[in-house]
C-alpha cells in the first residue's frame, strides 16, 4: 500500500509528477486519436482503431468531436503551464496547493468525460462532467490570478537587475498576472458562445465560416476566443522560459513592459472582434502583437548572448565557430528560443503574409485551400509550444550527457522537419498547380510523418523510461518529489 501511496504522492503531489502525468495523458490521446486522420485514415488504420475501441463516429457530429478533442488536449497543456507557474513564481502555499489540486481535477475530468462523451456514445452525464471539468479549470485560473497579484509587498522585486517599478513592484510578475487575467477573461469568450451553440447542438468549426460576409456576435466571439487562447498560451510559455533561464538585465527591463503592453492591447483587439470595434480590431491586434513579439525577440537575444558568453568564458578571444558551438552546446537551453524564432517562419510569417495578400492571393483560392493555411499555422504554433514544454521538461528530469543531446536535438530536428514540411504544404499553391502537386505532396507528407512519428517514438521512450523508474525503490522520482522549479532557475 505504501508503494502505491508514495507513487501517487509523487505523481499528484509534486510539480514534476503532475507535469509527467499531464504529458503522459496528452501523449496517449495524441497517439490514439492521431490515428483517425490524415495518412493514418488513408492507410486504413482509422477503421481498425474505431473498431478496436468501439468508437461511435456519427458523421454529423465530427465537428463537435474535434472541438472536445482539442479542448481536452489544450486543458492539459494549460495545466502544465499552471504547474510551472506555481512552482516558479512566489505565492502563498495555500494558493499553490489549491490551484494545482483544482486544475488537476479539472483537466482530468474534462479529458476523461469529454472524450468519452465525444467518441463513445452520448452519455449526457459525461457531457455535464466535461463542462464541470472546464469550470474547475476556470476556477483554478481565477485563483491563479489572485495568487499572482503583483501589488503585494511580499512579492516585490528587491533585485535591481530585474524589471521593476521605482517602488519595487515586479514587472515580470505583472506580465504573468496580466496574461493569467486576460486568459480567464478570454475563456469567457469561448464559454458563452460555447454554451449557446452547445445547447442548440449546432457545433461548428470557425475555419468553415471565414468567408461569410456577415457573422453573428457569437460566431465572432468563437473566432476571437480560439485565436487569443493559443496566443496567450504562447505568451505564457515565453514568460515561463524567461523565468527558467533567469532572464534579467537591461533587455529584461525593456521586455517586460513590452510584454505587459502587448498582452493587454492584443486582448483588447481580440475582444473587440465581438463588438462594434470589429472593423478596426485587426489594427489593434497588430498593435498588440508587435510589442509581444519584440519582447520574445529580446529574450532570444539575451539568452543566446548568455549561452555564447558562458560557453566561451574560458577562451581569451573566441572565434565565430567557437561562439556558434557554445550557442548550440546545450539543445535544451538553446532549443526553446530557437523554436520561438522558427515560429516566425511557420506561424507569424505565414499569418502576416496571409493578412497582407488576403484578397489578392488567398481569397482567390477555394475556401478549402485557405482553410489549409489557417488550420496549418494554428497546428504549427500548437506543436511548437508543445516542443518548448518538452524541451524544458527534458531539463527538469535531469537529462545529462548523450541522452540530453539526443533528446534535445531529436525534438528540435524532428519537429522542425515536420513543421517546415507543413508550412511548405500550406503554401504549395503559390508555386505548384493542383494537377502537378502529387510528388511534392508525397514528399512533404513523408517528411511530416517521419518528423512527427520519430518525435512521438522519442516521447514514448521517455514515458516508458519514466514508467519503469516509478517501479524502482530509489528511482529518479524519489529525488523529484521535493524539487521546485524555482530552485532550478539558472544562475
Amino acid at each position, binding site marked *: 500500500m505504501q508503494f502505491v501511496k508514495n507513487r501517487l504522492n509523487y505523481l499528484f503531489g509534486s510539480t514534476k509528477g503532475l507535469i509527467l502525468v499531464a504529458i503522459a495523458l496528452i501523449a496517449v490521446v495524441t497517439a490514439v486519436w492521431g490515428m483517425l486522420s490524415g495518412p493514418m485514415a488513408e492507410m486504413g488504420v482509422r477503421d481498425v482503431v474505431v473498431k478496436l475501441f468501439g468508437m461511435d463516429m456519427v458523421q*454529423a457530429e465530427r465537428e463537435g468531436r474535434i472541438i472536445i478533442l482539442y479542448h481536452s488536449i489544450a486543458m492539459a497543456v494549460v495545466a502544465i503551464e499552471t504547474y510551472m507557474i506555481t512552482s516558479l513564481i512566489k505565492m502563498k502555499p495555500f494558493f499553490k496547493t489549491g490551484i494545482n489540486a483544482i486544475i488537476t481535477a479539472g483537466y482530468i475530468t474534462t479529458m476523461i468525460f469529454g472524450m468519452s462523451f465525444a467518441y463513445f456514445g452520448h452519455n449526457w452525464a459525461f457531457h455535464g462532467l466535461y463542462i464541470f471539468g472546464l469550470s474547475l479549470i476556470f476556477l483554478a485560473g481565477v485563483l491563479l490570478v489572485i495568487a499572482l497579484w503583483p501589488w503585494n509587498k511580499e512579492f516585490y522585486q528587491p533585485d535591481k537587475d530585474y524589471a521593476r517599478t521605482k517602488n519595487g513592484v515586479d514587472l515580470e510578475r505583472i506580465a504573468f498576472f496580466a496574461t493569467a487575467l486576460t486568459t480567464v477573461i478570454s475563456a469567457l469568450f469561448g464559454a458563452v458562445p460555447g454554451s449557446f451553440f452547445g445547447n442548440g447542438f449546432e457545433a461548428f468549426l470557425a475555419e468553415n465560416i471565414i468567408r461569410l460576409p456577415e457573422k453573428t456576435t457569437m460566431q465572432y466571439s468563437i473566432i476571437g476566443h480560439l485565436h487569443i487562447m493559443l496566443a496567450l498560451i504562447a505568451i505564457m510559455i515565453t514568460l515561463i522560459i524567461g523565468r527558467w533561464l533567469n532572464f534579467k538585465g537591461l533587455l529584461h527591463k525593456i521586455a517586460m513592459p513590452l510584454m505587459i503592453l502587448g498582452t493587454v492591447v492584443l486582448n483588447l483587439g481580440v475582444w473587440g472582434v465581438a463588438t462594434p470595434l470589429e472593423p478596426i480590431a485587426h489594427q489593434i491586434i497588430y498593435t498588440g502583437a508587435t510589442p509581444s513579439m519584440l519582447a520574445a525577440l529580446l529574450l532570444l537575444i539575451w539568452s543566446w548572448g548568455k549561452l555564447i558568453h558562458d560557453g566561451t568564458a574560458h577562451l581569451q578571444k573566441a572565434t565565430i565557430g567557437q561562439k556558434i558551438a557554445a550557442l548550440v552546446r546545450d539543445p535544451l537551453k538553446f532549443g526553446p528560443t530557437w523554436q520561438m524564432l522558427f515560429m516566425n517562419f511557420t506561424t507569424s510569417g505565414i499569418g502576416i503574409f496571409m493578412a497582407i495578400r488576403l*484578397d489578392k492571393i488567398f*481569397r482567390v483560392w*477555394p*475556401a478549402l485551400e485557405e482553410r489549409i493555411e489557417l488550420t496549418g499555422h494554428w497546428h504549427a504554433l500548437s506543436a511548437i509550444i508543445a516542443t518548448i514544454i518538452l524541451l524544458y521538461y527534458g531539463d527538469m528530469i535531469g537529462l545529462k550527457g548523450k541522452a540530453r543531446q539526443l533528446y534535445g536535438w531529436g525534438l528540435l530536428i524532428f519537429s522542425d522537419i515536420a513543421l517546415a514540411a507543413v508550412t511548405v504544404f500550406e503554401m504549395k499553391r503559390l508555386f505548384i498547380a*493542383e494537377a502537378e502537386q*502529387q*510528388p511534392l505532396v508525397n*514528399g512533404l507528407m513523408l517528411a511530416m510523418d517521419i518528423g512527427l512519428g520519430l518525435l512521438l517514438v522519442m516521447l514514448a521512450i521517455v514515458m516508458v523510461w519514466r514508467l519503469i523508474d516509478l517501479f524502482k525503490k530509489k528511482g529518479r522520482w524519489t529525488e523529484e518529489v521535493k524539487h521546485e522549479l524555482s530552485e532550478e532557475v539558472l544562475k
Partner: protein
Amino acid sequence: MKRIIPTLFLLAFLMASCAPVDLNAALPSVETNVDTNLWAQISAGEFYFGQHDEIQKTGAYETMITDVTTAQYAAFLNKALATGYIKVKGDQITGYYPGDEFHGVKHEEKIDAGDWLFILMNDPSQRIKFDGTTFTVEPGYENHPMTSVTWFGSWGYCGYYEWRLPTEIEWEKAARGTDTRPFPWGDEIRRENANFYASGDPFENMSTFGSRTTPAGFYNGQTYNGYVTLDSASPYGLYDMAGNVWQWTGNVYPGMHYRFMRGGSKDTYDMNLRVWSRNNATPTYFSPGVGFRCARDK
C-alpha cells in the same frame, strides 16, 4: 561516409518530390452504361437541410443524373461558337454574363456585366482541345465530368440550353433525399462508394499523378476489370453527388462574389463528401477537381 548517406537520402527525397507529373498518362477505358442525358425528377416538398437538419422546402424540379461530361461540353462549345454565344480571345473562351449587384461589403469584389472566362485552353489540365474551328475531347475523357471550367462557364452551359445551375438547397435535396443521411447512399462511406483522395480507384496513382476523375456514373455497382463498385446513387438516382468533382451551384449571395460548390472531389478527404459540406471560390476559378451539373424547372 556518415555525411554522404544523409545527403544522398536528402537528394533522392528532393528529386522524388520534384519529379514532373505526366498529365497525359494512359487512362483506363471504362463504359459505365449510365445514360448521361437523363434527368431525375425531384418532387416538391420539405427535406432536412444542412448538418443540423434544418427543415427546408423546394418546388418540383429536375436535375441531371450525372455531371456534365467533357463530350457534352465540347458539343456545347461548338454550337455556342457558331451562334456567337461564346468568344475566343487568345487562349481564353469567354461568354457574356450580366453582372451582379455590388454591395461594397468587406472582401467583396465587383462582378460587372461583360465577357467572363468560361475555360482556358492552355491550361495543362484542360481536356478539351481547339484547332481554331472545332472543339474536340482528348480521347478517353469523353465520359468524364467536364472540369477546369469556371462558374461562368458552368452558368453559360446551363443557360445556353435554357436550364440553370441548381441552388444549394436544390443540390442538397437531390443528393440527400428526404431523410437525414450524411452521404447520398446512406450513413457510412467506403472506398467503393466514391472517388475521393486516396480512395484506390483504378484511375488514381498516388505515387505519380495522384487522383483523377472517374467516368460519370462510375460508382453504380458494376465491376470494372475486377474493381468492384457499390451502387452509390442518391435517393433520386443521381450519381457522383459525393466525390469525383466539386459541383458549382447557382446562388449569388448578396455581399459576396464567391460561388459555392458542393459534393467534395477526388482531391478531398471523405469528410468533405458529406452532403452538407461546402466549398467556395471566385467565379473565375477553375480546377481539374471542379465541374457541374444543371437543373431545370419542371
